[in-house]
């Protein structure tokens, strides 16, 4: 009855050195390792994971996949990701349960409507599928949304990306891990990086609890822990780590056909394949590495959910949990070199990392293989915080997702 293959990965001992060492065995690290091997033929690669593979945000997100971002740079990389998602089960020979059931972003104020319309128009011209739905069309697409005009913040319309949807996060991580392992990548769990070996301004390896491991290039892919690792190499990142909570209900008969997100009422919810409602809360405001947040954030989330979905009133929260999101000032990621030679960073995905997984891995692998940015990640370099050329996606990321 298992949906998973009989063989996933070896559990190798680390070797003395690798061409590329990726620090962080989450979705992005595993995808990077896979594309390094598959796209660039670089197989002498280790992924070092402090805990268990894909046990951080990869295991904790609400699995929403979409590419309907406002700015050209974002739309390009997320749409590249979406195209990769569409072929991923076949490429990795593992059913990642990618369900393109459509994502609605609801508008509740006239300004929401303007912004939604702006995004739909930009998406179309960027080759991202996008539609504007009026309240009647919203009701037809998702009958359980409360589209009554009498609620506190009535639904005035919504953007719809039909190709967007959800996938099963563990399957995704394990699929990348399995293929990377097959291609020769060493996935080393329980291996915590405690420092960097440097020669002048050049990183030549990492110190770990399992001993030193030399590396031609080192790529950080540690999400919420990026600042901690980068600081070991003397690099400060424009990133703050915050708790982000999510929750699931009990298993329910199918009731919710798509994904609904609302910035204004602060909800994002889907129903997973097994039947549980999966819902994310807002970011807790304070810095934290504790992977847990405050209960009032969950309570607010429930109140918001019932505003939009009265039918959920009797559902139960079965489990809540928290991840650590690495948030940048413009809510866009950082992918590229650091001021230290041979040290690269891929971080700052904040609440949006899961959906980017394949493109993040694709472009980061290119960057680690060539030492140069891929055109898709070039705009996401650290330099933008000096020049001021930010890619401000706060609108798209106003609620966590």
């Amino acid at each position: 009855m298992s949906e998973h293959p009989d063989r996933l990965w070896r559990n190798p001992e680390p070797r003395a050195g690798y061409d590329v060492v990726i620090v962080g065995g989450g979705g992005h690290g595993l995808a990077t390792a896979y594309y390094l091997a598959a796209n660039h033929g670089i197989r002498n690669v280790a992924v070092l994971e402090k805990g268990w593979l894909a046990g951080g945000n990869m295991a904790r997100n609400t699995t929403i996949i979409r590419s309907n971002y406002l700015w050209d740079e974002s739309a390009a990389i997320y749409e590249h990701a979406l195209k990769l998602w569409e072929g991923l089960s076949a490429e990795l020979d593992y059913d990642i349960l990618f369900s393109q059931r459509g994502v609605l972003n609801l508008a509740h104020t006239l300004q929401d409507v303007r912004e939604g319309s702006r995004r739909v128009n930009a998406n179309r011209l960027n080759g991202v599928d996008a539609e504007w739905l009026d309240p009647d069309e919203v009701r037809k697409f998702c009958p359980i949304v409360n589209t009554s005009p009498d609620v506190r913040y009535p639904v005035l319309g919504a953007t719809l990306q039909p190709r967007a949807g959800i996938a099963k996060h563990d399957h995704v991580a394990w699929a990348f891990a399995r293929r990377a392992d097959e291609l020769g990548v060493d996935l080393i769990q329980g291996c915590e990086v405690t420092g960097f070996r440097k020669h002048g301004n050049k990183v030549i390896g990492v110190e770990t609890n399992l001993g030193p491991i030399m590396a031609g290039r080192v790529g950080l892919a540690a999400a919420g822990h990026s600042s901690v690792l980068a600081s070991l190499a003397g690099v400060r990142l424009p990133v703050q780590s915050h708790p982000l909570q999510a929750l699931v209900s009990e298993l329910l008969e199918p009731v919710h056909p798509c994904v609904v997100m609302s910035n204004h009422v602060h909800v994002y919810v889907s129903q997973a394949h097994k039947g549980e409602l999966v819902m994310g809360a807002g970011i807790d405001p304070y810095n934290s590495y504790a992977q847990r947040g405050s209960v009032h954030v969950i309570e607010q989330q429930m109140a918001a959910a019932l505003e939009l979905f009265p039918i959920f009133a009797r559902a139960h929260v079965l489990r809540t949990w928290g991840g650590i999101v690495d948030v940048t000032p413009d809510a866009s990621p950082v992918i590229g070199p650091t001021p230290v030679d041979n040290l690269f960073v891929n971080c700052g995905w904040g609440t949006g990392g899961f959906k980017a997984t394949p493109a993040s891995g694709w472009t980061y692998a290119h960057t680690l293989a060539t030492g140069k940015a891929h055109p898709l990640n070039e705009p996401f370099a650290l330099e933008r915080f000096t020049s001021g050329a930010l890619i401000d996606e706060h609108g798209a990321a106003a609620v966590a997702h």
Partner: protein
Amino acid sequence: MLLIPCPWCGDRDETEFHYGGQAGVPYPERPAELTDEQWGEYLFVRDNPKGEFAERWSHSAGCRRWFNLVRNTATHEIVR
């Protein structure tokens, strides 16, 4: 739900407060003399330690005063 010690009002629930991030990052005295790198660092880069963190809070739903405290970001313990 953190319990935050406002120096003026005493211990209050987190919901009464507004978070202000790292403490002790003053506005540069002469911004015009900074390089773009230095100005960008002031604007966008803050410490993000795992462990004790000196940070700012404002008792926004109470006395509205800003104050600093030291909190452990790994445990949420308020150290001082």
